[in-house]
């Protein structure tokens, strides 16, 4: 792999809670992960297990209640809200939200949405427009859509805009939360190929997805999140073709493919029994 070993992100023993007092609940527990330059880590797991929460914690969008987060060697765990904002504005870390509508300003034509982070960085308008358009083309968005509002696009068009938007600033670490869930297979291949190119260019990527085939295809390593803990972390191919933890086995076994039927109800129940044993 092209990873050169220097971690862009180091997370150790991360804890996250939501809610106050009686409603306070732990969502992430003892989560550790590091991602090197040029490495792609896939995060798969149960819905509601805390994948998006993990991403938000790494961006300072939710506050960790324990553990450490290092970005490019710098401990950001105790950052104030203002320091986090400054860090995000520098564009070192970028996040593609699971809901593409949240990544995009509903009142801004998408081309404007794309160049905005560049203008913030001090890039001149003309160059920003050029770069913005280049990335929209790269995600295969038809140029006649550039002037539209996000609400006037189809689901997959929006998702591609959201991906293009994080690419323009050329960040060192990109977290993508379900970036291909709304895409037809041709566009999915297109985005996945871009991710591979980014990895080869030295970008560190965290790729959160329920699409196990996509994750297996682009990730170097895979981490399986279950009820707020990483229950298995390992070589991508190994985790998919030979999962060890009972939850990972249930997950991989439940995926339907074009060529083989997924586990039946009875088979899933048997795997689940193992999990609770």
């Amino acid at each position, binding site marked *: 792999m092209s990873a050169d070993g220097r971690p862009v992100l180091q997370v150790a023993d991360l804890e996250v809670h939501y809610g106050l007092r009686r409603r306070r609940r732990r969502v992430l527990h003892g989560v550790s992960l590091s991602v090197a330059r040029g490495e792609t880590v896939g995060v798969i797991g149960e*819905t509601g297990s805390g994948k998006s929460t993990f991403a938000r914690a790494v961006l300072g969008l939710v506050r960790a209640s324990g553990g450490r987060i290092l970005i490019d060697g710098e401990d950001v765990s105790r950052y104030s809200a203002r320091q986090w904002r400054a860090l995000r504005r520098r564009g070192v870390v970028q996040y593609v939200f699971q809901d593409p509508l949240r990544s995009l300003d509903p009142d801004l034509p998408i081309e404007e949405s794309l160049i905005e982070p560049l203008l913030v960085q001090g890039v001149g308008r003309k160059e920003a427009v050029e770069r913005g358009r280049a990335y929209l083309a790269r995600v295969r968005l038809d140029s006649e859509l550039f002037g539209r509002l996000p609400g006037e696009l189809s689901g997959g068009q929006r998702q591609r805009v959201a991906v293009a938007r994080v690419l323009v600033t050329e960040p060192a670490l990109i977290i993508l939360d379900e970036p291909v869930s709304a895409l037809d297979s041709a566009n999915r291949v297109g985005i996945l190929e871009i991710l591979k190119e980014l990895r080869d260019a030295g970008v560190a990527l965290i790729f959160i997805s329920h699409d196990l085939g996509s994750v*297996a295809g682009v990730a170097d390593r895979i981490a399986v999140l279950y009820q707020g803990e990483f229950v298995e972390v390992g070589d991508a191919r190994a985790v998919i073709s030979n999962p060890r933890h009972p939850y990972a086995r249930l997950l991989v076994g439940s995926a339907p493919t074009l*060529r*083989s039927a997924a586990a039946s109800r009875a088979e899933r129940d048997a795997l689940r029994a193992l999990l609770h044993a």
Partner: protein
Amino acid sequence: MTRTRSDGTATATVPAARPADPPAGQPPAVPSPAVPSPAVPSPAVAPTTADPQSAAAPPAAQAPALTVRGVRIRDEVNDREIVHGVSFELRPGRAVGIVGESGSGKTLTCRAILGILPAHFAVSAGSIEIAGRDIAGLTTPQWTDLRGSTISAVFQDPASYLNPSLKVGVQIAEVIQVKSGLRRRAARRRALELLTAVHLRDPELVYDQYTFELSGGMLQRVLIATAIAADPQVLIADEATTALDVTVQAEILDLLADLRERNGLALVVVSHDLAVVAQVCDEVLVMREGEVVEHGPTADVLYHPRHEYTRLLIAEHEQYGLDRYLADSDSTTDPDPDPDPEADPHAGIGPVAGEQRKELDDVR
């Protein structure tokens, strides 16, 4: 692992999803009384056209639950036709899949069926019948009556269909009260039943949460619960399981299979996941640039595709398909779908763009 290889025809001829093992100790699959659907946004842009006299035939036992005939959709502001004629017929208990290119008009077609096209869009030709009723010229109260109890939907962007400032449980219960006249306590109980049926781990907790407190997959299941609350005859599922992990997705597909069997629910499934479509649907429409390029039984379309675009879609699906990595799958060396020796490779309705054809060649 417990994985049975199924080449095309084998799986595809068993479209009624998985075998119905009695789910020991599973939550009750589905509650019963009738209630309504997601708060459908934006008022109906009443579809035009179609001769109104066709609302005649009373729904016989196997009369179609949904008939779509030559529907075309226009963007009136930009004076463009976006959807160039979609036709299918859906009988009770059956499922039709719509797959295809992003932006090809799948969601607009679904919205046309529900009478909720965005402003400036209109059905410019063709007709739609829901349970034997032509929807052209339905009044707003008639639509309100129909949505939820006869036809309902789960759309791609779940967050847009719920009120962010109300607890999700309260929203479901409200809908139940309005549609079925249940009292508050009963409506709450029923809402909790529905949240259990969609396999939310802690229904009581979710009931009291706001949309921003729910994960993508939890939100999606709240919408599914709402959509099936009133026992609709037709459910439109537009990428309705994409935010779910495959384990929960399997549970939801089982639930829908039960509803088809037990209540004769008819399904329209829009999905980019061809494996889901192969598992669930009896027939498939393949759309590209507003055109239906291929339409037929699932087994034919997905395992013996005739149109170039369908082949491209399948080839690209398999390029990142799970089959490549499954340890005990014997198909890893041959990621291409079984070519049908009889099929004429050029029998498609229209050509694929040059660039895509090249990609298709590259994959082969």
